[in-house]
């Protein structure tokens, strides 16, 4: 019997499914250090999945052994259960299998779907748009709306609309390009992938949507920070903020998507953060946050592998 371990994992899963993401989502320190906050969110997502599936497995496999590795080995080698296997053991085992399959399946599915969409976009772009001489990875798309974006992948592409180029001066344009390059250089799309999967797999879990939104926002802030570091203009913060405001204001007309209104406040936060930068996180706080993230991953792993309590 492994009741204490299963209970501990279930408690951890419950904490990670609701209060912890709610707290981190509301905290103000992440905008002071987006990278550390991103690490924390990854740990929450991973530890959450590990503990919920682990709790179900540990309970379901309890009749077969005193620890999860021992019980798992007994099942795989066809040893009979030493304790009677009740209905609730089968139910939790089934739930564990369904949840694991759903999470991994959705992850794989969104990976494939995303790759297909990106390939389509890249094909369209490479056909419609001439490579720019100045930057081989940047393309100029004829369109009046001021838009910039990048397509991550093995052959990343950075796209500026002619509207964007017309609206911005050279320094602002450099800021936009530096921001997009930062996304590509740090592979920010990979940070987002697990949260896309979580949200798609568990739409009933409000924390999944909140986590996804928070990670999107943090990734933008992180790209802003990286862009600032590489800009050689007199006032990089103002320059980038101006570019954001011009791009946001210009694209608002005639975009038929309600979801953009939600992004609105995120744009405001970014501009405020650039104009009135919060103090960077002190080193001890950074270390504490990273340590917490490490512990979040360590605790369910130890609970899963250690002999039953």
């Amino acid at each position, binding site marked *: 019997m492994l009741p204490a371990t299963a209970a501990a994992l279930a408690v951890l899963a419950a904490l990670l499914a609701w209060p912890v993401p709610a707290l981190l989502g509301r905290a103000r320190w992440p905008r002071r250090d987006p990278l550390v906050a991103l690490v924390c969110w990854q740990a929450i997502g991973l530890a959450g999945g590990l503990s919920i599936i682990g709790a179900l497995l540990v309970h379901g496999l309890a009749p077969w052994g005193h620890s999860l590795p021992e019980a798992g080995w007994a099942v795989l080698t066809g040893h009979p259960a030493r304790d009677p296997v009740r209905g609730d053991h089968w139910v939790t085992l089934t739930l564990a299998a369904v949840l694991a399959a759903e999470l991994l399946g959705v992850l794989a599915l969104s990976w494939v779907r995303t790759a297909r969409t990106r390939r389509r976009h890249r094909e369209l772009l490479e056909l419609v748009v001439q490579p720019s001489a100045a930057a081989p990875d940047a393309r100029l798309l004829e*369109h009046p709306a001021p838009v910039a974006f990048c397509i991550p992948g093995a052959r990343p592409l950075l796209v500026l609309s002619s509207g964007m180029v017309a609206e911005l001066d050279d320094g602002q344009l450099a800021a936009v390009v530096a921001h997009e390059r930062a996304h590509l250089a740090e592979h920010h799309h990979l940070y987002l992938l697990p949260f896309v999967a979580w949200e798609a797999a568990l739409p009933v879990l409000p924390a999944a949507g909140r986590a996804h939104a928070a990670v999107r926002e943090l990734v933008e802030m992180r790209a802003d920070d990286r862009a600032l570091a590489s800009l050689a203009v007199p006032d990089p913060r103002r320059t980038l903020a101006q570019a954001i405001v011009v791009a946001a204001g210009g694209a608002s007309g005639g*975009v038929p998507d309600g979801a953009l209104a939600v992004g609105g406040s995120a744009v405001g936060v970014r501009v405020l953060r650039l104009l009135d930068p919060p103090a960077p996180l002190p080193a001890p706080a950074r270390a504490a946050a990273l340590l917490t993230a490490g512990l979040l991953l360590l605790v369910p792993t130890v609970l899963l592998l250690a002999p039953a309590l």
Partner: protein
Amino acid sequence: MASLGDLERTVMDVLWGADGPVAATELRDALADRDLALTTVHTVLSRLEGKGFVEHDDARPRRFRPRASRAEHAAELMHEVLGQAGDRQAVLARFVGGVDPEEARLLRQLLEGSAPDARAR
């Protein structure tokens, strides 16, 4: 040696510039400066057909034409990007989403208020 992507773009440019459907031999002649073999032209055309950019008619020899204009393709792409249709993640890094006009006005004010020289934009 030009890349296939480069050739595809060149062929599309010819097709987009033509008045009507174009045969493969005419394409080869139009791109005479590139000294392409007819098989190469066919390869490029079938790749473009596979991607859904080109279609052919039933005449003999077959003649090819673009399925949509360059502007239509650009508009399709921008529509997907602006609407974030499909997987939200696919185009990860649109620089900023739009904001409603009221917030845009507030942000512009903020920017002007914080300007060292109060430069109006």
